[in-house]
């Protein structure tokens, strides 16, 4: 190594020492700075640590509080669960959860004792459905699908196979939820339906029994009017949807009251039950049979039963009933009147259709004396029905306006051929020319308008009697009172009031009633007529012989006169059988102390014959047609003021 190189190296090493010093100083500065930084970091860590301790303490406290709260909540939850289980037990209920994804059902509650299902978790839904009554399962599935698709709540009554092997009624409620499946299977956000299943067997059975009693006739077990009306709504709706009509038959047992009267109610009830059984025999052709009232039944034939076929079946029913026997074997033979109408052709609503079948029955009733009949509602009946409707409407209006009048037909004493009285006859001056007065009265009777009309007639009659009285004409005036009035109005009170109001002698009034009054409660009628008699009013039986003609009733009732029906008088003098009947009625009446009036006398021959037979009074065109009041009082004989004293054959003064 040369001197110069040694010097270079020495120089280098000296410089290096200098650089090393600088480097060490740099390092020391760095170290100092890093120490300071580390100190600062340490301080901050200490602070952070302290803060952390505070946070940890606070968090620990909060955790303890939360834990405590959770424990309390857990206790409360347990209590709630216990209470819920108790309530479920008391209510005979279980809760259920249907896991939609797994198609399984969990059941909580005493399902083992209620449903006999074990185990209670993860039951395949298909297996459970098999336990539901086949008539209810489809409905439940529908409700379940609606719940899943539209979120609708489930509320379904189902029969479920119970532990004892029989079906029991349960009420199944449920709602769609995403809650609960997680706790059951650990599957998060799984869709499920949660609900309850309550044993409602006794309650539903009671409801069904109540419904059955409310909707069925207790005597025959057939559906009643209430059930019929609701069933009709369903069938009518289905019929309108399908476009297929159906035939309806109203059945009325003719003269059923006679069966009750003759054999007693027990036998009568048996007949009604037997008849119901006969109707049940037609079930393959009918969709509904009901008993509407006492002897009135309704049948709705199935859509596929043509009207002509229904008519044939009705005819068959008539034949079957004609040979019916009582339970004791005695042959009875029921006579039926049946009215048929087609829905919706003959009536698009219950009321309209019922009116049609009733109209058809009414037509049939006119022929009931010849036996059973089956009448199909037709255009003629419809015309008649509308005609009646027109009469009814016009009559109602006329009653409001009091636009009626009276005509009077004199009644002659056979002995001296003097007018002794007259019959007040209802007249309607504004009446449509196409109608006659008798059909107007019939409509008034059928519609109940006779009550108001009858009152007006009584009032008008009293006004005229009062006029006669004031004129000093002491002749009697007879007025017709409808059986319906006796049934629904207090006739004695009505007449008593009028007598006082018009200050009229009661003996100037004769109340005429028809034989139909015998069909009412005869004891009550006897009482009412006795009240009239006590007031001094006299009573006559009108149109005797045309209807019920019960001698027993004639004897029972406190009457004064009997008016023989014109139909018998027409034949008097011609030597026919009628003449013998008239003679018998006159003799019988006289023997009971009643006077006899022959009405509708039109010929001299009739008059002569009746005189010979001893008839007391004559009324008819032979002497005078019905006339107005003004014409009446102008009649020569009428205004003589002869005393109005009728002598009976027994010598009693009436």
């Amino acid at each position: 190594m040369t001197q110069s190189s040694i010097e270079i190296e020495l120089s280098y090493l000296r410089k290096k020492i200098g650089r090393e010093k600088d480097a060490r100083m740099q390092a020391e500065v760095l170290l100092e700075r890093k120490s300071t930084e580390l100190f600062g970091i340490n301080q901050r860590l200490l602070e952070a640590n302290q803060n952390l301790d505070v946070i940890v303490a606070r968090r620990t406290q909060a955790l303890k509080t939360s834990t405590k709260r959770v424990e309390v909540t857990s206790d409360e939850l347990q209590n709630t669960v216990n209470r819920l289980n108790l309530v479920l037990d008391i209510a005979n209920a279980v809760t259920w959860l249907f896991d939609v994804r797994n198609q399984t059902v969990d059941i909580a509650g005493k399902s083992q004792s209620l449903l006999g299902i074990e185990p209670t978790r993860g039951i395949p839904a298909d297996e459970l459905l098999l336990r539901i009554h086949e008539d209810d399962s489809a409905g439940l599935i529908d409700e379940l699908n609606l719940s899943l698709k539209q979120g609708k709540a489930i509320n379904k009554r189902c029969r479920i196979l119970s532990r004892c092997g029989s079906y029991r009624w349960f009420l199944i409620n449920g709602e769609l939820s995403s809650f609960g499946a997680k706790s059951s299977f650990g599957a998060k956000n799984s869709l499920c339906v949660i609900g309850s299943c309550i044993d409602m067997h006794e309650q539903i059975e009671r409801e069904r029994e109540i419904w059955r009693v409310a909707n069925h006739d207790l005597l025959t077990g057939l559906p009643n009017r209430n059930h019929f009306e609701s069933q009709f709504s369903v069938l009518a709706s289905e019929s309108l949807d399908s476009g297929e009509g159906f035939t309806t038959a109203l059945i009325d047992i003719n003269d059923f009251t006679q069966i009750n009267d003759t054999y007693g109610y027990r036998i009568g009830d048996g007949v009604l039950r037997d008849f119901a059984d006969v109707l049940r025999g037609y079930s393959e052709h009918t969709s509904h049979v009901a008993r509407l009232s006492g002897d009135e039944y309704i049948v709705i034939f199935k859509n596929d039963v043509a009207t002509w076929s229904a008519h044939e079946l009705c005819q068959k029913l008539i034949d079957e009933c004609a040979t019916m026997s009582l339970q004791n074997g005695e042959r009875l033979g029921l006579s039926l009147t049946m009215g048929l109408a087609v829905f919706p052709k003959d009536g698009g609503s219950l009321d309209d259709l019922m009116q049609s079948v009733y109209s058809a029955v009414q037509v049939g009733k006119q022929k009931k004396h010849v036996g059973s009949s089956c009448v199909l509602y037709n255009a003629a009946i419809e015309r008649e029905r509308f005609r009646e409707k027109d009469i009814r409407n016009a009559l109602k209006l006329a009653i409001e306006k009091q636009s009626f009048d009276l005509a009077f037909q004199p009644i002659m004493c056979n002995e001296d051929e003097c007018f002794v009285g007259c019959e007040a006859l209802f007249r309607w001056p504004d009446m449509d020319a196409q109608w006659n007065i008798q059909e107007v009265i019939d409509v008034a009777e059928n519609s109940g308008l006779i009550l108001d009309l009858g009152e007006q007639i009584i009032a008008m009659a009293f006004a005229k009697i009062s006029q006669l009285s004031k004129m000093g004409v002491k002749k009697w005036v007879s007025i017709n009172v409808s059986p319906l009035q006796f049934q629904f109005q207090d006739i004695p009170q009505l007449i008593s009031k009028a007598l006082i109001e018009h200050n009229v002698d009661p003996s100037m009034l004769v109340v005429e009633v028809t034989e139909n009054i015998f069909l009412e409660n005869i004891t009550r009628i006897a009482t009412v007529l006795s009240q009239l008699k006590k007031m001094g009013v006299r009573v006559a039986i009108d149109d005797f012989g045309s209807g019920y003609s019960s001698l027993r009733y004639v004897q029972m009732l406190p009457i004064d006169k009997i008016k023989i029906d014109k139909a018998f008088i027409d034949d008097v003098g011609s030597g026919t059988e009628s003449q013998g009947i008239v003679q018998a009625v006159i003799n019988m009446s006289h023997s009971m102390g009643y006077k006899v009036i022959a009405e509708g006398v039109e010929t001299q021959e009739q008059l002569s014959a009746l005189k010979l037979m001893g008839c007391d009074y004559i009324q008819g065109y032979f002497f005078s047609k019905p006339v107005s009041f003004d014409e009446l009082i102008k009649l020569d004989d009428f205004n003589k003021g002869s005393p109005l004293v009728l002598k009976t054959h027994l010598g009693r003064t009436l």
Partner: protein
Amino acid sequence: MKGIIFTEFIELVETTFGYSIAAALLDGCDLPSGGAYTAVGTYDHQEVLTLVGQLQKLTGTPASDLLEAYGLFLFPKLAAQMESMSLKFDGAIDLLCSLETIIHKEVLKLYPDAELPSFNIQNINSQEIVMEYRSCRPFAHLAKGLINGCAEYYQQELSVSMKHLNTETEFFTLISVRQS
């Protein structure tokens, strides 16, 4: 750039070329630091480039060879630090593959302001990898020297080849490493 790079470089020059070259090197470079380096300090990387450029002039050895030789020399020092940090690898390839994912992460913990190159590793197979060297500094050859140092450290034979794909914004080199 960390001071250890500089101190080790000076030591390499002193060891390999002697004090006279080292003196000429430091005297010939007008370094902002004056060449007073401490391993724990941080210095401008330009100083390395200046030193390497000057050394190339003094010795006539290409800068790339100088950097590779420096990498070979530097690795054992870095390996010692690595061991102190309890970082252990199965071999050279394992270490190279962990460069980005483990070693640089640990370095950044110690020196948060360190500016490290990135090495994206493309595994071809267990014996061969391609390293994508990306840096704002032209030290791909230093990396190659370090890889060679790593092979020596694990006493494995690695063949290393490079393909420079530098762009205007960065230094980008594909370094293929195959274990034989």
